């Protein structure tokens, strides 16, 4: 039953990732933490592997639609390790509860961003 919930949330997280260009981790992390009994930190770590798969598939699809600027994407990716290491070290050195609360704030921020975007689009979905 819990596995089913994780599979459904995974599918939905991937679908939203395709729609709004994120990896879906904002849903994978709570799915793993709530239904698979992982700690917040373990769920975050495992979520990243799922994100790589999703981003690969998403990039492949988006390339077909001509929506990827590979050069800018590569520059962002290649320059990311400094931030990645800082974030990872921090995640491993704060309390589980602090990480949970901070993550919940990120989730709320993301929800607000989605709401703002969906209400401010003048002609939603129009292919530009």
């Amino acid at each position, binding site marked *: 039953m819990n596995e089913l919930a994780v599979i459904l949330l995974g599918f939905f997280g991937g679908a939203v990732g395709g729609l709004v260009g994120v990896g879906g981790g904002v849903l994978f992390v709570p799915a793993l933490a709530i239904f698979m009994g992982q700690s917040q930190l373990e769920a975050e770590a495992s979520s*990243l*592997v799922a994100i790589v798969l999703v981003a690969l598939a998403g990039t492949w699809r988006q390339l077909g639609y001509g929506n990827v600027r590979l050069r800018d994407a590569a520059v962002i990716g290649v320059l990311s390790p400094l931030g990645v290491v800082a974030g990872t070290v921090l995640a491993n050195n704060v309390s589980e509860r602090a990480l949970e609360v901070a993550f919940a704030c990120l989730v709320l921020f993301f*929800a607000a961003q989605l709401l703002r975007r969906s209400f401010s689009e003048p002609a939603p979905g129009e292919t530009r």
Partner: protein
Amino acid sequence: MSGQPPRSGPRLLKLAFIATLAGAFSGLFGVGGGTVIVPLLVMWFGYSEHVATGTSLAAIVLIGLFAAIAHGAYGNVDIPKAMLVGVPAVGGIVAGTALQQRLSGRTVSLLFAGLLVSVAIKLLID
């Protein structure tokens, strides 16, 4: 240098800023960082929403990989559980990108926002 495009310096700086911020989000929260990449590409470079989402996903391949390696070094990555959520998600993203080409996504965004709020409440209450 006079032959250089005047905006390439600031452009690279901005990309480096996006990369560092997204990387920090990724390492700290186990996400890809698209939450910061997409709006900044739209705001700073005038990307359309669709190109911003596509480019963000491509950047996340590398960011997610680096962050997975970093967290792996701490021994916290559980591959079978990652697959349980990741494999269905691949099906989801293929469906999602196809939908994006013909849908507004507004309904999905609203649904997702509602789901996120409940997730946040669950995290805060537990």
